């Protein structure tokens, strides 16, 4: 149980250049009025470039909280979080938005596509906030859709697509801004087993192309696709196992 060099990191250090994610003694507490909920109680993790990591754990273990911190949707109560050599744990709201836009590609369990927009427009969304011109956006969004095998479905709306296709659109959207990490939260939770396998194939392909993938899941056979499985329990890292290559 050695969280990969994270233990060697000291406050005041800077992470090594190939470390994409460095969490150092992250805690997150929620003040629920009467009681203090300690969702994370000191999590230290390092994830290097082009790793494929699954985060597992029972509900209440803190995996969603860790996910939100890694995704820069939330800030830790204490500890340091470095993303791609940039310390983000004490950034302000707008800077976090910029980090989310540039560094992180979210894939959600429920896809979260805009129902009235076609696939191309859905994939364009992050580029709007990146400030790209309409023409540049369209080209890159189209490219991303081709990459996930939906080159022929660009003008389809989500309700004209199957579940697997919708998740592919969501993956294309996550990829379109060329993020440091692809952050997937139960990406197959709403899909049947055949489609799940298809989507896991997509993640596998992306990983082989050099993409860093972090995936939260509670299904062992999904986690089995990852090269490394981190298990959380009671707000702490319980195990951190690496598959023999």
């Amino acid at each position, binding site marked *: 149980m050695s969280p990969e060099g994270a233990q060697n990191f000291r406050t005041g250090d800077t992470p090594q250049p190939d470390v994409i994610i460095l969490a150092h003694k992250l805690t997150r507490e929620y003040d629920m009025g009467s009681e203090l909920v300690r969702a994370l109680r000191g999590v230290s993790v390092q994830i290097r470039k082009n790793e494929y990591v699954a985060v597992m754990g029972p509900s209440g273990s803190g995996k969603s909280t860790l996910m939100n911190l890694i995704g820069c949707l*939330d800030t830790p109560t204490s500890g340091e979080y470095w993303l791609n050599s940039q310390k983000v744990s004490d950034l302000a709201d*707008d800077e976090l*938005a910029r980090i*989310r836009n540039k560094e992180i590609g*979210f894939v*959600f369990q429920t896809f979260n596509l805009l129902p009235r927009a076609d696939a191309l427009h859905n994939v364009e969304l992050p580029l709007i906030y990146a*400030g790209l011109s309409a023409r540049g956006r369209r080209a890159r969004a189209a490219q991303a859709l081709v990459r996930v095998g939906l080159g022929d479905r660009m003008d389809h709306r989500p309700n004209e697509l199957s579940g697997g296709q919708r998740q592919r659109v969501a993956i294309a959207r996550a990829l379109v801004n060329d993020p440091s990490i692809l952050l997937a939260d139960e990406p197959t939770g709403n899909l049947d087993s055949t489609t799940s396998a298809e989507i896991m194939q997509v993640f596998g392909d992306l990983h082989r192309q050099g993409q860093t993938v972090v995936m939260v899941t509670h299904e062992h056979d999904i986690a089995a696709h990852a090269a490394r499985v981190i298990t959380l329990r009671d707000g702490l890292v319980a195990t951190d196992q690496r598959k023999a290559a």
Partner: protein
Amino acid sequence: MPLFEAIVLALGQLRAQKLKSGFSLLGVFVGVTFLIAAWSIVNGMNVYMTEQFAGRLIGVNTFHLRRRPNFTPNISDSTWRAWARRPRITFGDAEAVTAAITAPVITAWESSDRVTVEGSGKKVLDVEVTGATERYFDIKNLAIANGRAFTAHEVRSGVPVIVLGEDIALKLFPSRDPIGRQVRISGQAYRVIGVVAHQGKIFGFSLDRFAVAPARSPIQDLVNPPGIIDALIVKAGSVEAMRAAMLEAEGVMRSRHHLRPRQDNNFVLETSEGVLAFWGGIKRILMFVGPGLVGVALVVGGIVIMNIMLMAVAERTREIGLRKSLGARRTDILRQFLAESVTIAVVGASIGILTGIGLSILLDAVTPLPASVSVASIILGVVIGGGVGIVAGVYPATRAARLDPIAALRQE
């Protein structure tokens, strides 16, 4: 997100939810429609009152010497009775005043009544027949289209000749030249010597339904008691000349009526200013009431938009969470929702402007109310629409911008 994107997005939202958006822009639509239409009517009335009504009925740089004001809104009974006791304006008064005025003016007598005019076996009821002197046509800007006006000599001798308004001429002599023919007014025959050019309408009333005969012709017994006239009209070339003439006329009349210095005039020197002042009063009321009504509609419209926007924020919480997770900053979300409420309001205002213009044109065409659309009201309509949109949108948009992305994404 650039503003343009936000507006495109807002228009898309509007198109996607036509019914809801339709309701939400109703308030602004009604307010702006009313604004444009009411403004057009006031504007049109204004042009009418200053250029047409006051100018036609009294005339520029012109005053009327009368026993009592001709334009008398809201007069109490006691005032009316006091006016009725005043001495009337006599031929002698008119001659004395005309002789006393040294300023360069032209004058005319005027005495009118509504009577029946007959001719060539036909009859026209309720015609404004006036006994006047020869300069009357010049003062009233009545151009003669056919024949001639009567002369000073005909006025002095009281020759029974008559000049007809276009309506009367056409009704009595539809297919023949009326010049030289006879008309009869309460049994007395008059020879038609002229027809006045087309005058049009004012508030829906024809201005061509009249006839003018020399003041001392037999018409005098019909329109007034002997030796009495309704008014002496004095037209000057300038405001200064008019003021000078008014002072002279006032002096002459006061001495003829034996008024002591502290006594009030028992006659009036009425100018178009009086009519315009009366109109000014009405306009002030309209200008006060109009914006009030517009304001109420806009406040209601704003509240409706605010509610719709709050609903939109609640409905689209998940979308907001998603946009934030994809990198939207608070200002992006704020701008998106603000653009949406402004777009709703401006679309409402634009439809309101078009409807208002249409309504004004319609009113102008089918009712006697004159209406003329003012550019200022259109600009104001757009500005007000945008303003309402911003005011109504700030609170919902701020709420949207402040949403916590994690909670927003979790929302079902």
